[in-house]
């Protein structure tokens, strides 16, 4: 290893903010950027896929993906993410996490490129290939996400860790933004090249074969940030941090070590007290003591994360349907294929630019001022308010005020990110005792993933119209967009209710929060700040 690279680590700690820190921010944040791009760019192209492969020109409406295919294409990456997290978590424990960096990123590069390729030209072949490689892309993302969090905590400057984490945090929003921008560029280029009639005027002429390249380019572009991430990470020196101290797992590590050592024999009186302390602190996950102390906390963190991700993922993946429903995106038959991609990308990019990204920054600025509890409660509250405000006068918005609808809808995204999206990740890492912290955090995260799957798959069907004539081809009737929004509002309301079960952790040490301090005589070293990341 070159001496210069080693010097980076020393400089990160000693020097004031310099070029090193920005380099480290970009390197650490590229993982989150890549993950966000790859996971969310699929929503930009599903309409186009439906038009290209499933159009029946005798039907007055353009083709859309059948419900099974839509669900598979949209959700398969999430299933891959879950599988990848399990596999690479196991592999990281066996090998050390550093050694699997290259593996996950190469997997992401290869599968991003491959998802733009196909075996055969039938709809069946194209969709099957896409689903297969999207699964493995999600698998790589599942492996990469915790590694990105690890890199962030390992290279954070000791003095300005909070600001560092904030900047890395925001890269996720930029990833979503980048997806929209790429789609805008590609669709604009094709729109200028081909002057196509709308579907209503000329069904056969509203698409040309070369539009097939559009969705492939957008998906394959995901390989670029993944490749850049790989290049930069390979240049980083090996870790030189006690990550256990950074992540406040020192007690857990010490506890594990004490099990394989002979503990000092103490005097009789000390021994008795030691036994009492040990008994008091060694309750397990399924014990009465845990249920009494932390049962409600675990219910609170699990349910809030579950409910949040139902709302969050359904909003992200199906916002284009909402835009169509209120007319901000014209009905599909009034556009040609490429123009539809353009309008969807523009709408999503505006939402990301005005709501998602600022929401992240607001959370970072206020999380240690307002506290996690207040931010989460406020976030769920305003999400509830804006959801109901959209849903109840839905017909009014639809017929009279498109701009008002979009503004209100943007606020739900803003308060999702300046709200529970961030805090549901931070809080489980803070309120449970050290021995059980990673387990409880894992349980909460798994609930979040389950919520994401419910949101991704469930909302697709629910948002269908109650009128059979208006239903997209092949779908059963649903409850309509209006009622779907009402359901999401109710979900957010319950998120607010269950937030009351979670204690406030602002300004308290981990030992105070988990009750360990009541029994320990020795004070743990107070580590400044804590690693805060949000799930993709």
């Amino acid at each position: 290893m070159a001496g210069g690279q080693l010097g980076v680590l020393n400089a990160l700690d000693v020097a004031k903010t310099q070029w090193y820190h920005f380099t480290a921010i970009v390197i650490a944040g590229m993982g989150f950027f890549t993950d966000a791009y790859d996971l969310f760019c699929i929503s930009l192209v599903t309409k186009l896929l439906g038009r290209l492969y499933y159009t029946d020109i005798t039907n007055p409406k353009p083709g859309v993906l059948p419900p099974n295919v839509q669900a598979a294409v949209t959700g398969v990456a999430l299933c891959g993410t879950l599988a990848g997290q399990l596999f690479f978590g196991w592999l990281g424990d066996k090998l050390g996490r550093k050694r699997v960096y290259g593996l996950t990123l190469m997997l992401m590069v290869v599968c991003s490129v491959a998802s733009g390729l196909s075996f055969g030209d039938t709809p069946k072949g194209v969709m099957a290939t896409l689903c297969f490689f999207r699964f493995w892309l999600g698998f790589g993302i599942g492996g990469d996400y915790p590694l990105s969090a690890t890199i962030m905590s390992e290279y954070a400057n000791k003095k300005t860790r909070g600001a560092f984490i904030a900047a890395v945090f925001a890269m996720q929003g930029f990833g979503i933004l980048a997806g929209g921008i790429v789609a805008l560029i590609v669709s604009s280029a094709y729109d200028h090249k081909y002057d196509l009639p709308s579907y209503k005027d000329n069904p056969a002429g509203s698409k040309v074969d070369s539009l097939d390249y559009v969705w492939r380019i957008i998906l394959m572009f995901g390989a670029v940030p993944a490749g850049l991430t790989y290049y930069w990470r390979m240049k980083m020196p090996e870790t030189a941090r006690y990550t256990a101290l950074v992540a406040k797992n020192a007690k857990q590590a010490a506890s594990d070590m004490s099990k394989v050592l002979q503990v000092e024999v103490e005097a009789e009186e000390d021994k008795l007290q030691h036994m009492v302390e040990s008994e008091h602190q060694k309750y397990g996950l399924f014990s009465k003591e845990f249920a009494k102390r932390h049962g409600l906390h675990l219910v609170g963190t699990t349910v809030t994360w579950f409910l949040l991700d139902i709302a969050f993922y359904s909003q992200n993946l199906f916002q284009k349907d909402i835009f169509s429903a209120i007319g901000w995106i014209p009905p599909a038959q009034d556009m040609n294929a490429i123009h539809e991609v353009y309008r969807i990308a523009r709408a999503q990019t505006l939402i990301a630019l005005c709501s998602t990204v600022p929401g992240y920054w607001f959370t970072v600025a206020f999380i240690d001022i307002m506290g996690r509890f207040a931010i989460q409660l406020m976030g769920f509250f305003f999400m509830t308010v804006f959801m109901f405000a959209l849903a109840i006068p839905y017909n009014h918005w639809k017929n009279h005020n498109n701009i008002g609808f979009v503004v209100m809808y943007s606020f739900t995204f803003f308060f999702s990110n300046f709200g529970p999206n961030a805090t549901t990740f931070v809080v489980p890492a803070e309120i449970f005792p050290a021995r059980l912290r990673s387990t409880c955090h894992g349980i909460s995260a798994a609930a979040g993933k389950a919520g994401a799957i419910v949101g991704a798959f469930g909302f697709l069907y629910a948002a269908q119209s109650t009128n059979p004539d208006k239903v997209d081809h092949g779908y059963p009737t649903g409850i309509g967009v209006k009622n779907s929004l009402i359901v999401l509002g109710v979900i957010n309301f319950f998120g607010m209710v269950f937030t009351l079960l979670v204690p406030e952790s602002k300004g308290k040490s981990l030992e105070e929060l988990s009750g360990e301090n009541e029994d320990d005589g020795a004070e743990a070293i107070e580590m400044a700040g804590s690693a805060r990341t949000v799930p993709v």
Partner: protein
Amino acid sequence: MLSFSSLTFLFKICRRIQFSDLRRAPFVALQLEKRSELAIWVSNFRTLSMGNDAGSPQGPVTCGSWIRRPENLNLVVLGRSRRGSSCPSLLEIFSFDPKTTSLSTSPLTTYVLEAEEGDPVAITVHPSGDDFVCALSNGSCKLFELYGRETNMKLLAKELAPLQGIGPQKCISFSVDGSKFAAGGMDGHLRIMEWPSMRVILDEPRAHNSVQDMDFSLDSEFLASTSTDGSARIWKTEDGVPLNTLSRNSDEKIELCRFSKDGTKPFLFCSVQKGDTSVTAVYDISTWNKIGHKRLIRKSASVMSISNDGKYLSLGSKDGDICVVEVKKMQIYHYSKRLHLGTNIASLEFCPGERVVLTTSVEWGALVTKLTVPKDWKEWQIYLVLLGLFLASAVAFYIFFENSDSFWNFPMGKDQPARPRFKPVLKDPQSYDDQNIWGPVDM
């Protein structure tokens, strides 16, 4: 000239090793180990023989260290003291062959120390692998730069002004990130300096009675140092402030110390002498409290080392034994009894990239020993597992693809009973035409 006693002695050593191995290792490992050991002894024997033939045997090895070079190349630097008037003090660089687990038979380069410089006492290599510092018995430290390729290697010596005439240094060490250098003197004087600027961070004449051992932490934030009187202190390397003194009972003497190199295990391992027993104690570096202890090596420990990835801890004894312990379970995974028969092991160090240790002693010189520890996963094995999963899922996907036409296809009109009957009749030929006319170009 071969002496009969030397030959007999060598034969006894081989025989003893063989007997010992039979009890401990499986047959395959035994073969590997025996071959390695024999190769080492033959190598040493040849060296001695050549030395004898030349009429000038080399001086004893006093210290040694690995040098990590680019492209996964590992070298070894050995320090030899003078013997009589005809064998000067030397620094020799050898290459290491991982296939045969042996050092090269002749050094790549040699540096001869002047008589007034004395003998090498300790060597520490900078993490970059480009230079190392050698502490000399005349009370100075010297910097050596390594340059050239393996076939044309040279050593260039430089004086380090702040380290001239400071008295004999028992231990010298670079921090893990290479930005700091520490020297512990036999007079108890402890110094910490920035590297390479040599700005003084700590200059404490009375840090200890006499420095015995010291080590930098993984994050280069702490320096632990032990004294011959059994005390141990922790220093902050940023500003040289003493942070803590490790707790111990009155009958305990902390002798050796090594920080963990595994980021998930923030511990300090110490070799502690309790009466006649030597145990390894573990301290938590977030509280500096002792977590516990365990007896690992049978005799008193003379040297301690930890592997670069932090998985293994190794102890060398004053009787020539070495043992290698897995840190996670604190279990002995390798024990070489009397590797340096009846002699204090002077240095013990893990190879940066292989499961091999370098040991040196004055009596037996330098040995490299392949460890009988579980093999690490190789990169290609990981890729193989992933490829296997990939192909298995490809097969599963294909089977699903072939047997689930209804999943992918557009629902047929007949599935919708409310639809008028005449539409399906018109639809079928259109669908057929649509497939041909508008399908994507075959990529």
